């Protein structure tokens, strides 16, 4: 069974600090996504990434957020200046039609 991994599993940071969430998607997949789920709320789409560029992003994904695939294996989500409301579980997904696999998530806590 293919597996998407995410690190760290839990990240605690102070408001205003930068965080980088890392994902290793499945190697032959072409599309990558970030989603988040604030505690008790729905899973929200953040961004999709294909061919080394953003293909779609939601209203949540403002200029405080960025994604990149620096080395062909890792897929990262950076939040430049975290806010309290960024506290959530962040899930990476790896997609090759029609299969989508999710990572286990990173719990981000902003204090």
């Amino acid at each position, binding site marked *: 069974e293919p597996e998407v991994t*995410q690190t760290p599993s839990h990240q605690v940071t102070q408001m205003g600090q930068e965080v980088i969430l890392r994902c290793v998607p499945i190697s032959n997949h072409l*599309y990558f996504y970030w989603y988040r789920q604030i505690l008790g709320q*729905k*899973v929200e789409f953040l961004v999709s990434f294909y061919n080394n560029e953003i293909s779609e992003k939601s209203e949540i994904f403002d200029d405080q957020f960025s994604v990149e695939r620096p080395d062909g294996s890792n897929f990262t989500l950076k939040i430049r200046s975290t806010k309290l409301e960024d506290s959530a579980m962040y899930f990476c997904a790896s*997609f090759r*039609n029609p299969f*989508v696999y999710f990572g*286990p998530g990173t719990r981000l806590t902003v204090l």
Partner: protein
Amino acid sequence: DQQVKQNSPSLSVQEGRISILNCDYTNSMFDYFLWYKKYPAEGPTFLISISSIKDKNEDGRFTVFLNKSAKHLSLHIVPSQPGDSAVYFCAAITGANNLFFGTGTRLTVIP
């Protein structure tokens, strides 16, 4: 614009009975539909999928039905077990590889 909708945020079913989770969509260009199951603090895990050219797909206790004319799909779980208690998401994929998720339905199976 929510292209994939799950109008029931929650569902409770007695153990052994059938659980029916519903999903509606608006985009007739979806090629594939998928169901995911999510436990708290874990990533969504793939359950079952169906191509838009089919109307039924079965895998053990799980069956997905697709009604293209009504733009509706449903997931049937029978018999329901307490371990099935989770949040269930439906998702849909277009030919352009855009992936859309519903907002989820929390299933509680009562022993």
